């Protein structure tokens, strides 16, 4: 699974070519290559899927027609964008204001993304209320909240309110988790 946030980080160092002695600090970096790489990966996936698709008996513009066009366009675009990212690395200073460009805060990203991953994986075991409160707490912590106790209470309150309004009131099926099993399945 793609555990989210770490992707942009390693790229700058890894792709810094030794031949080009850039005057810009390394931080400005080549992490912009992430998107062209992703696009290329998607295009290759489209091509491989089209090649392995058993499309016997379909007439000319069959299920492989558009994917192949998309893949070709995607690869061309990926090449253009990659060249652009290499030739114009992000400046570390904003050219218009002169202020330092904001950095990507990986710790905050990890808290929010990781919190959501934990929420998704634990939802059926913990139940909506506890997992939801966990998600709320992780997110607000990632956003720099320094009131953990208050966040726990607010998260529990919000998740419970949602459970009451949407689960009980509007009839959405939200998991009860082990609490529900203890109570004999509410």
């Amino acid at each position, binding site marked *: 699974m793609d555990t*989210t*946030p770490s992707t942009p980080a390693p790229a700058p160092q890894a792709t810094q070519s030794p031949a080009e002695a850039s005057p810009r600090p390394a931080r400005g970096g080549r992490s912009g290559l992430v*998107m062209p790489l992703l696009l290329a990966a998607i295009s290759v996936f489209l091509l491989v899927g089209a090649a392995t*698709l*058993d499309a016997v008996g379909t007439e000319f513009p069959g299920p492989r027609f558009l994917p192949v066009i*998309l893949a070709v366009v995607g690869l061309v*675009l990926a090449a253009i964008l990659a060249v652009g990212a290499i030739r114009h690395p992000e400046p570390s200073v904003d050219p218009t204001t002169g202020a330092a460009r904001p950095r990507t*805060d990986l710790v905050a990203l990890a808290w*929010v993304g990781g919190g959501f991953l934990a929420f998704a994986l634990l939802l*059926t075991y913990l139940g909506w209320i506890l997992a939801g409160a966990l998600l709320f707490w992780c997110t607000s912590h990632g956003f720099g909240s320094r009131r953990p106790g208050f966040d726990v209470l607010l998260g529990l309150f919000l998740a419970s309110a949602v459970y009451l309004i949407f689960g009980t009131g509007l009839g959405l099926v939200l998991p009860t988790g082990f609490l529900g099993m203890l109570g004999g399945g509410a």
Partner: protein
Amino acid sequence: MDQLGLLMEGFAGALTPMNLLWVVVGCLLGTAVGVLPGLGSSMAVALLLPMTFALDPTAAFILFAGVYFGGLFGDSTMAILLNTPGQASAIASTFEGHKMANSGRAPQALATAAIGAFIGGMIASVLVVFLSPTLVAVSASFGPPEYFALALFAFVATSSVVADNIAKGLAALVIGVAITMVGIDGISGLERYTLGAPQLFDGISLVTVTVGILALGEVLFVASRIRGTREDLRIRAAGRPFLSAAEVKEAAPAWARGTLIGLPFGVVPAGGAEVPTFLAYEAERRLDRRRKHPVFGKGAIRGLAAPEAAGNATTGMAMGALLALGLPISATAAIMLAAFRQYGLQPGPLLFERSPELVWALLASFFLAMVVLLIINLPFAQLWSKLLLIPKPQLYGGITLFCGLGIYATSGAVFDLLMLLGVGVLGFLMRRYEYPLAPLMIGMVLGPLAESSLRDALLSSVGDPRVLVSSPITIVIYALLAVVVALAVRAAVRQRTREDL
């Protein structure tokens, strides 16, 4: 008049106490989300999309209309007061609007914006009511080649006009269309790109992609930038929120011109209200230069009035185009289209025949939403800005919780939550590296239509590509497309030469 009779029936349908309540709730919710910094109307609609399943379709769409227009009002409130537009279409309002607020005329600026939006939206709604039969008649004669031409137009126009960088726009478009390739191919019945996972046989849900790209991606992006952002949000003193007669007289021509500029863009699939708002602003600025005492740059009321009217005129017309043609012109309209599909309704000519009560009640609710919004925005705009006092950690914690709720409510599967996270990361990366999001949404929504109409057309002509340009309508559409591309290329070249100087 036939339309008037139908509209009256629509009002009768929309004016039930319950539906009226949904209009008000929608307007309040939309304004609230629009007012919050960084959150725009498309995020409001995206978050709300999964919530509406408990409602009947009419109530759901009335709620949507309220949220959508409310979000636009909220966006411009914040653009004026704090110079933080929640949506690209509110950027043009910041230029003169925020200057007005800085010079102590915040209430007048808010009133100018609210009245401008009201006028633009109202005129657009009236036009939609009277033009919709024509649009329906035109679109009834559309076959696969015409629909393919329209989809292609929407693709190219959104990727090239809205995006600063055409390659980035097209990349977003390719990713959007590629997402729709997953699942069972509708024409041959073959399963594609599912990796054998049964959860993917029906394809990747548009709701998941919408919430992931527009909501969770935004949360991740804000999280990555949370340190070092300024916290010195000031709310300016309240005052008399009314315009003097002289101010109304000053703004009136700008409202009218803005509306005129905005209307045609509602039926052109070129990315929504962003382009017309800038055009309206630019037109006013040029007119202003010819006057004896140019006031632009010092908080010119006309520089705010015109883009506000243009933005809402486009939005109103876009709703008409969505209903009559089934063609979304912006990301938010794309989400509305997704909502229609969730209810098994397909916007387009047949919708007017099959569910007239829904269509006309929805159109009537546009008028109601405009009135309600004027009421809750004109006197209380200052009150709305108090929402800024919600601390960011708790605000975004709540938003993330609602993302999770929305997706789990629609699918009931952990798989979709993981998919949401993956799409959210994609949304984050696209924001981080300044890839436009609208082409991805348009590609995702219109991808299946483009593919099936292209293949149907080619199958019927036994592979002869000339079928794609066989009718006058298709030739007109491709000619328009050529004009749009030429203009975009010209603008790009100009910008480059200016940079080099």
